[in-house]
């Protein structure tokens, strides 16, 4: 949808309204059906599991569909330390995911290297060094509520996006 002529759209009567409605519907669909890639690396993975567990229950937001395969995941939660040995795997998984895709960097390790920010020879200092990150959730590990809060923030971000200008991460 890139490169649609904005002027042209405005000229056709009724089209802007149709476009905004379609945009809203699509965004609503996207934001309410975020299937996560089960991808745990360290401590944060346990809190991710706890978020899926009954007390916090991310199924309420429609997230519980298990998608072990990256092909149909919408969101990757980088939950833990990204190491040099893991780097190519993460990039590959990200590229295997279908557009539109979102990344949440959960916990200090995925944001900046966290505990391993200094003196570590094998840790990448933040997931955003290798893949684009949408939401950062600090904490070591963040509480499940913090993850849910991050997901709600991601939903708000998705609702704001215009599908004519969605960035294609290539």
């Amino acid at each position, binding site marked *: 949808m890139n490169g649609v002529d904005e002027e042209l759209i405005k000229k056709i009567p009724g089209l802007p309204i149709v476009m905004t409605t379609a945009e809203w519907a699509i965004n609503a669909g996207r934001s309410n059906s975020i299937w996560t890639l*089960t*991808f*745990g*690396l*360290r*401590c944060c*993975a*346990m*809190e991710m*599991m*706890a978020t*899926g*567990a*009954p*007390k916090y229950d991310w199924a309420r937001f429609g997230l519980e569909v*298990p998608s*072990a395969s*990256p092909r149909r995941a919408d969101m990757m939660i980088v939950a*833990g*330390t990204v*190491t040099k*040995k*893991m780097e190519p*795997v993460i990039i590959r*998984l990200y590229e295997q995911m279908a557009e539109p895709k979102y990344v949440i960097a959960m916990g200090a390790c995925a944001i900046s290297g966290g*505990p*391993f920010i*200094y*003196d*570590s*020879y*094998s*840790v990448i200092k933040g997931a955003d060094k290798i893949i684009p990150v949408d939401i950062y959730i600090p904490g*070591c*590990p963040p*509480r499940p509520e913090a993850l849910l809060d991050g997901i709600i923030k991601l939903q708000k971000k998705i609702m704001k996006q215009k599908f004519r200008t969605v960035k294609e991460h290539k």
Partner: protein
Amino acid sequence: MTTKAPFELEKLSNDEYILNMGPQHPSTHGVLRIILKLDGEVVKDLYCDVGYIHSSVEKMCENKKYEMIMPYTDRLDYLSAVNYNWGYALAVEKLMGITVPERAEYIRVMLAELNRIMSHLLWYSAYGMDVGALTPIMYAFREREEVIDMIEGMTGGRLTHNAFRFGGFRNDLPKDFMDSLKKFIGHFNDKIDEYEALLINNIILTARTIGVGVLSKETAINYGVTGPSLRGSNCAIDLRKTAPYSIYEKFDFKACVGKNGDTWDRLKVRMDEMRESTKILKQAMEGIPAGDIMAKVPKIIKPAPGEVYTKVESARGEFGVYIVSDGTDKPYRIKFRSPSFSNLSVLKEITIGSKIADVVAIMGSLDLVIPEIDR
């Protein structure tokens, strides 16, 4: 000294093929890569590729003061962080000659046992997912949240507690801790029965696990397997009993053992261990004395030159800390002997000849935590 392909393709026979599991695979509990040589569904050979989460903790600790290393031990094994704290605290206390007050020891025992329960509950839920049952995780996490709330009330952290200080604790138990502990112990045994009815005694699971992945006592000891995985092989070695640290001699409990060392025995041992832990908790709750919670500890931790090795029974087995001190406020060399490291190395031995599904079942029964393997 270089990484090479574990199986050479030319050497494969016509029926064999290679399947790569991981590093991102739903059943590898984090990031473990297992390369299987298969003939149909039968595993012919297996190669473990670890190190995907190697984060150079040992190197970093050489450049940190003794106090600062405590949070890092949490992150080695986030499931039984208290036991890891304890192993490290014990090492430094031994090096410095600090005696911990009795009340603090009781609190330590209570936290450690709660932590063991918490870890086994997570193992139970993860095992349920491994064998394809999606409900056990939900029930186990209900109790796990209760335990986490208790530990959080005491230490302030849900997983990475950073609970211990050299010589005892910073804060005493919160007021409502005993009440919630009493409540928890009151209903927890019934819940364990429910778990067993739901998963462990289920005929589908028993058919899958009995007689599968048999680990003999000799192999287990030879491979340095410790903890519940070793006890499943009818070998009553529990560091809390065989080499008691802290005040574990005071408690009446038994080291749970399995019969044949197959996968199901390892599962059963963990379930029984939760019951034993509740027993210890009950005794600790009744016997806890009043008094100090912190020993007299110098402001700057600067142990004398020398070396020390201490080990504790974590939820997965023997966790040891080896410290070489050169008399400064930073350790010269620190080595963590993690139980999963040895436990994983035996996987190849017990898996060959079984099915793909068994690899998952056996691996789950060893209860691996990958970051402590990789450190």
